[in-house]
């Protein structure tokens, strides 16, 4: 999978490394701004109130 991505990135090794870094940052950004905030309430780690639910 990662090998496949590496082989399909254009340019020489340096360009590939730079593009990989950009991809990693983009993935982390998407996770932190969209995926984790969505997933968090569904996981049982951070409920603090007492209630009847």
């Amino acid at each position, binding site marked *: 999978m990662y090998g496949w991505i590496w082989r399909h990135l254009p340019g020489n090794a340096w360009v590939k490394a730079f593009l990989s870094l950009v991809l990693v940052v983009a993935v982390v950004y998407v996770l*932190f701004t969209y995926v984790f905030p969505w997933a968090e309430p569904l996981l049982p*780690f951070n409920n603090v109130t*007492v209630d009847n639910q």
Partner: protein
Amino acid sequence: MNVAATTDDTEHAERVGDSPSPGRPARRGMGPIATVISVFGELLITAGLVMGLFVVYSLWWTNVVADRAAGEQADKIRDIWARQDGGSGRGAAFDAKNGIGFLHVPAMSGSEILVEKGTTSKILNDGVAGYYTDPVKATLPTSGRKGNFSLAAHRDGHGAKFHNIHKLAKGDPIVFETKDKWFVYKVYAILPETSKYNVQVLADIPKESGRTKAGNYITLTTCTPIYTSRYRYVVWGELERVQKVDENRTPPEELR
């Protein structure tokens, strides 16, 4: 000896002679099973990294975001208070959306905690303490009525405002600051572990704390043990005195 050495050498030479080629042909010729296993392995590694990132997100990033949000709202409210004090005008600026005051608990945290209405995660995730509107409505100290001022805040992440709740001991002060009054409470009972369904702790007269008469109580609730939400940690305090805010907003002696 000699013989052995020679055989060794030839074998070695053979291997060296072979070695440049396996690199490429092996990859191209990777069988379907090997491909599936390698992709599966990479997916597992990815899952591990994502989970690690989620921990970073929960315990660090949410704090950054929440502290920023709480700081902005706190500034706004201080601003509104200052403007009202200026006498320029309309007292209409009491806006529950921006919060109603600040909680100071020196034994727990060095900084003030903004208090807002409601305990939904949307509100608490801004790094504030919320007072209960559901399932039991909190009685605000500003209302002048007897009852229970019940609050909740995060133990971890999202500002983690009640992170050190276990450091509170009997007799420690909890001070609630409003525009013109300091409400000084003293901790009198602690329930280190209770069910999350135990809404009795929010009652106007919290019987579990040992009180049987109506009074001015404060209840702090959060989750416990740290990093999980299995149980709830509850701290009760009782109003000791109310002090007027002077023009310099000199804090009561408990906070000095």
